[in-house]
């Protein structure tokens, strides 16, 4: 195992290279381009057996990935923002065909206005498309999640596509430390790919993507997808544990820091979880009872475990890097609220929307949020449920 300095995109591309899938179909898009171009270079250098399809759009990237995975090949792509949005139609088809495609997503704001910087409106917008979603905080987690994604998606109890997120520019473009595995360790961990009912089995031809309308089995097929998601809950944990045995970095659905006796818990996802942790450390040193819960698995959502973990909190602050217009709050907020509603304890829950279009979030912003939550914990009722951090108007 070697420690190296690498960009988030570089770490993700390296993980993909070490897995060495059969086919990659990709289209460039800022800030994910580096993943595609690094991989194209690996192919050009003859470092991998992978065949690379330089498609003419992300819609075709996902369509070609669907063709390739249906044919029986281990298949990857990567995208961001508008590319993710252009794939939208095909994301649902990939999951309904139960194709374990792995797709790193470098999160970026959706137009308009056009903006190339980080927020989660792309991946959060895709939360209902039937893909497993794993969010990473930094390059290391981005790398680790990609390797685990193959094991999770290809597990026979799951057979679902997996997307792994890293934050655009903040992680994708920044150079950070990475403890990389050796190629053979990755290959051994991931194992050989087992195709199910592939198109290329000439002795057993199959029809994939049949018309399943009124009088058919559409409803039951949808239920089977949900069952696969339920199965994925355990598989994600098992794979995370096994990965921990190999690397010393164990993964679960989420990670907590200082929440055992915390009155106030901030829930965050993606790179900002690291910023929140830094602030929490400072506040703890001041004797303030604050903790943080970092979400890794957003789909399937680990409802019961998160409810249990947050059951001791008086006030919860949920930090969303994407908004949902006209809804009660961001996607993480509504998810956490719904989880807590089903529990015995009923903490107050507030939503902090931050970082849209790459807007910076400073330690002071996070401290400000905690101060608000402390007032709420002391019995003061906050006027609004939803707050925006570091915006120019009130």
């Amino acid at each position, binding site marked *: 195992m070697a420690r190296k300095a690498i960009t988030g995109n570089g770490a993700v591309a390296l993980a993909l290279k070490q897995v060495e899938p*059969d*086919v990659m*179909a990709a289209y460039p898009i800022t800030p994910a381009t580096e993943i595609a171009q690094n991989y194209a270079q690996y192919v050009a250098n003859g470092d991998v*057996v*992978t*065949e690379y*399809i*330089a*498609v*003419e*759009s992300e*819609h*075709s*990237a996902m*369509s*070609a*990935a*669907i*063709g*390739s*995975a*249906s*044919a*029986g*090949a281990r*298949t990857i792509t990567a995208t961001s923002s508008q590319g993710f949005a252009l794939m939208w*139609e*095909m994301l649902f*088809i990939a999951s309904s*065909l139960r194709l374990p495609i792995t797709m790193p997503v470098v999160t970026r704001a959706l137009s308009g206005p056009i903006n190339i910087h980080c927020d989660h409106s792309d991946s959060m917008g895709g939360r209902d498309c039937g893909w497993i979603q794993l969010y990473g905080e930094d390059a290391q987690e981005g790398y680790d999640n990609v390797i685990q994604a193959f094991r999770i998606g290809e597990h026979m109890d799951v057979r679902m596509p997996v997307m792994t997120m890293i934050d655009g520019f903040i992680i994708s473009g920044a150079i950070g430390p990475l403890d990389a595995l050796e190629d053979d360790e990755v290959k051994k961990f991931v194992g050989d790919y087992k195709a199910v009912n592939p*198109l*290329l*089995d*000439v002795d057993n*031809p*199959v*029809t*994939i*993507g*049949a*018309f*399943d*309308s009124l009088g*058919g*089995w559409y409803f039951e097929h949808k239920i089977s997808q949900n069952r696969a998601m339920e199965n994925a809950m355990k598989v994600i944990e098992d794979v995370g544990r096994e990965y921990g045995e190999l690397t010393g970095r164990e993964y679960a659905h989420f990670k907590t820091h200082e929440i055992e006796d915390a009155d106030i818990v901030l829930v965050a996802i993606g790179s900002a979880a690291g910023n929140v942790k830094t602030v929490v450390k400072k506040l703890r040193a001041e004797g303030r009872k604050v903790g943080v819960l970092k979400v890794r698995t957003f789909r399937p959502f680990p409802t019961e475990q998160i409810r249990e973990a947050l059951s001791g909190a008086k006030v919860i602050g949920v930090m969303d890097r994407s908004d949902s217009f006209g809804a009660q709050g961001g996607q993480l907020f509504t998810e956490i609220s719904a989880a807590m509603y089903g529990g015995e304890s009923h903490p107050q829950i507030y939503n902090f929307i931050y970082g849209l279009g790459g807007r910076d979030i400073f330690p002071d912003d996070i401290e400000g949020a905690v101060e608000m939550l402390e007032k709420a914990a002391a019995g003061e009722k906050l006027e609004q449920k939803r707050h925006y951090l570091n915006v120019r108007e009130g």
Partner: protein
Amino acid sequence: MAKPKELANKPERLTGGHRLCAGCGAPINVRQVMSVCPGPAVVSVSTGCLEVSTTIYPYTAWKDSMIHSAFENAGATISGVETAYNSLKKQGKIKDDMYFVAFGGDGGTYDIGLQSLSGAVERGHNFVFVCYDNGAYMNTGFQRSGATPRGAWTTTSPVGKESAGKQQNRKDLTAIMVAHDIPYAATASPHNFKDLMTKAEKAFATPGPAFLNVISPCPRGWRTPGDQTIALAKEAVQSCYWPLYEVENGKYKINYKPKGDKKTPVADWLKKQGRFAHLFKLENSEEVLAEIQDYIDRKWEELLKKEECLV
């Protein structure tokens, strides 16, 4: 080409029992093309009549592996399948030789599927794309497409006080495919099965992409009797509405040239189809029909010149 009798004795690769309409041109074209496919194939079909009628879950009419995922992406989908095949074959995980075919209607080829087809052809995947051109979005109930001929009634080029059907001429898709420097492109018609199957054989033998544009009469959308499908396809060719030609590595060859009286007036062909009935009741009927004829004649002359120059 093998003898028709031999071909007729080969097992069907698109079986009976599918739900396409009586007289539909699509399955006739598919069966003719597939009958000369030299080995096992994977077929990619865009959303449309052919797809919904041949794969009603849990049944399938396809004897080869078949994939449908969406409307606009038959080209991209088959390029993924073909690339997977190349990867697995190179790695020694697959032994058999296989063929890759995509079928799209004119909507899934001329319009919504054009980008995906263009990309797949430009990248040079080894596949055959077959467009069954029935001249409108028939699956959704007869809406105009880029392939709908001028004057045709459809539900989105309706006939009314202000409109006499579609205002525009068709898109020349075969020319667009030729502009990709595709190794092989051809038009064909089901009435001339020898020509169609010879072209399909050539398409399968072509390394890299090949494109076949096959006219496919639609009794429902054309407002014609189901037993007239083949006759209508034949007359489309005789009138030069649908010339039969092929372009091999940039060289044009017209496969059928009606001489003198054999080139029939397009109005005779239009008259037989309900979708053009209104044209014959217009005050300026003669003028409109003359314009339609002029366009067909101009395209035909153009084609003759291309054949003369691009040899």
